[in-house]
């Protein structure tokens, strides 16, 4: 793993234990997380990029209004198959996340603190909790291994013992979450950043973790890197002539042509003009020997199967879009109305679900139809520019 782009950061401790953590970062000073987040304009690192201070305040306000003590949930569920940054953070720097939980729990007056993570990480986290004097205050929760399991209301349902499916947002989680109480669900990287900010690190809100996926000497390569926000994408992800397109943000993200992607600053202001966002922090360079339509069709098939199946537009729209993309992915003339149908279905989905799953899936599909338009025409004439059908983007074998 290269560390050229960050001189100090979340992974500075030489090991995951408490002695290494203390020796590297020092003790956790008391601080007001709302003030820290507001001063640094910290944004959440779970995907939506929402201002952390606003979220913290809204839960604190809801706790006052309902006179119920709030619940704090550290979200390390990371259901996105292409992302690995939260899992790497929880393995390599767990005490920064636990410091963040401790800091926010004190700030909010939260008596119930839950850390949700994939089951295979829990034994390691339990050992880290046992090292801390405040470790008994944190309850570990095995997050369901599904795409939507990290969506905040789905995670709340999971912790409540219900099926891990998104809930209606008419009453938001910040007002009525775990156990019906005001609940703050905060991504684990956001918590770790707060832990560094409490120690006087003013730079950390300007950095972010990304998961890189690319091909190196014809071999698939995946790693997690801490980068400064605003770094040019081409400096972070190797984009040589063998890269066709870049997926920015993950499976709810955006395809960009390699030539467009290269110079883009990796922050909100840099990505917004091309309709992209950092989202789950995934940056994937599609090798030129693969077909972007085939890759997208596989991912969208997985996303359609990952729908909670609760909302009519998603339940009806995603399988139709996925089936149509599977047709477009073949090197054969598609039915004449197929593209028109896909665009109409894409228009029917945004802003109509309990969660943003349909919106994100439509964003991916629309960007694919734009970036891979030449491939769509090639397929219609019975050809495909790819030389291998070997999958590049990871899709779990077993889906709901």
């Amino acid at each position, binding site marked *: 793993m290269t560390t050229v782009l960050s001189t100090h950061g979340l992974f500075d401790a030489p090991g995951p234990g408490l002695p290494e953590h203390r020796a590297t970062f020092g003790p956790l000073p008391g601080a007001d997380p709302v003030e820290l987040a507001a001063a640094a304009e910290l944004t959440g690192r779970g995907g939506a990029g929402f201002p952390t201070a606003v979220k913290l305040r809204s839960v604190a306000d809801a706790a006052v209004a309902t006179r119920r003590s709030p619940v704090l949930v550290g979200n390390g569920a990371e259901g996105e198959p292409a992302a690995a940054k939260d899992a790497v953070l929880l393995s390599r720097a767990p005490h920064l996340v636990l410091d963040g939980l401790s800091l926010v729990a004190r700030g909010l007056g939260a008596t119930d603190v839950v850390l949700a993570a994939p089951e295979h990480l829990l034994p390691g986290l339990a050992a880290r909790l046992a090292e801390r004097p405040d470790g008994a205050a944190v309850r570990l929760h095995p997050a369901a291994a599904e795409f939507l399991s990290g969506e905040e209301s789905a995670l709340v349902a999971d912790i409540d013992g219900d099926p891990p499916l998104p809930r*209606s947002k008419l009453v938001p989680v910040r007002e009525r979450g775990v156990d019906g109480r005001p609940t703050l669900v*905060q991504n684990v990287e956001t918590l770790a950043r707060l832990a560094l900010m409490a120690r006087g690190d003013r730079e950390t809100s300007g950095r972010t973790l990304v998961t890189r996926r690319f091909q190196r000497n014809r071999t698939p390569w995946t790693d997690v890197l801490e980068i400064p926000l605003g770094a040019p994408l081409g400096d972070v992800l190797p984009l040589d002539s063998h890269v066709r397109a870049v997926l920015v943000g993950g499976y709810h993200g955006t395809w960009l042509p390699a030539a467009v992607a290269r110079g883009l600053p990796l922050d909100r202001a840099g990505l917004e003009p091309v309709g992209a966002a950092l989202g789950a922090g995934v940056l994937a360079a599609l090798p030129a020997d693969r077909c972007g339509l085939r890759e997208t069709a596989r991912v969208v098939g997985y996303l359609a199967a990952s729908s909670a199946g609760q909302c009519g537009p998603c339940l009806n729209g995603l399988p139709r879009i996925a089936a149509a993309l599977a047709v477009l992915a073949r090197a054969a003339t598609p039915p004449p109305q197929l593209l028109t149908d896909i665009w109409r279905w894409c228009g029917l989905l945004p802003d109509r679900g309990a969660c943003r799953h349909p919106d994100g899936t439509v964003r991916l599909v629309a960007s694919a139809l734009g970036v891979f338009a030449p491939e769509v025409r090639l397929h219609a004439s019975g050809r495909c520019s790819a030389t291998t059908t070997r999958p590049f983007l990871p899709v779990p074998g077993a889906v709901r």
Partner: protein
Amino acid sequence: MTRLAVDPIACTGHGLCAELLPEAIALDEWGYPLLADGELPRELLRRARSVAATCPTRALRLVQTAARSAATDA
């Protein structure tokens, strides 16, 4: 200041709302409601209230327009 809202989980696409309040509600090709953008006109308020009350799954609501729920993700 009032607008219509649908709880998309509760809604099962009976389509009663679009039949009774076509001025503000249409159906998509699968039978689920598409709400007109923006505020509900004053003259529709009373009828909209009674239509919401007849929704078989109580999915249709009238909500006061303030901030929409913002963060749906951590």
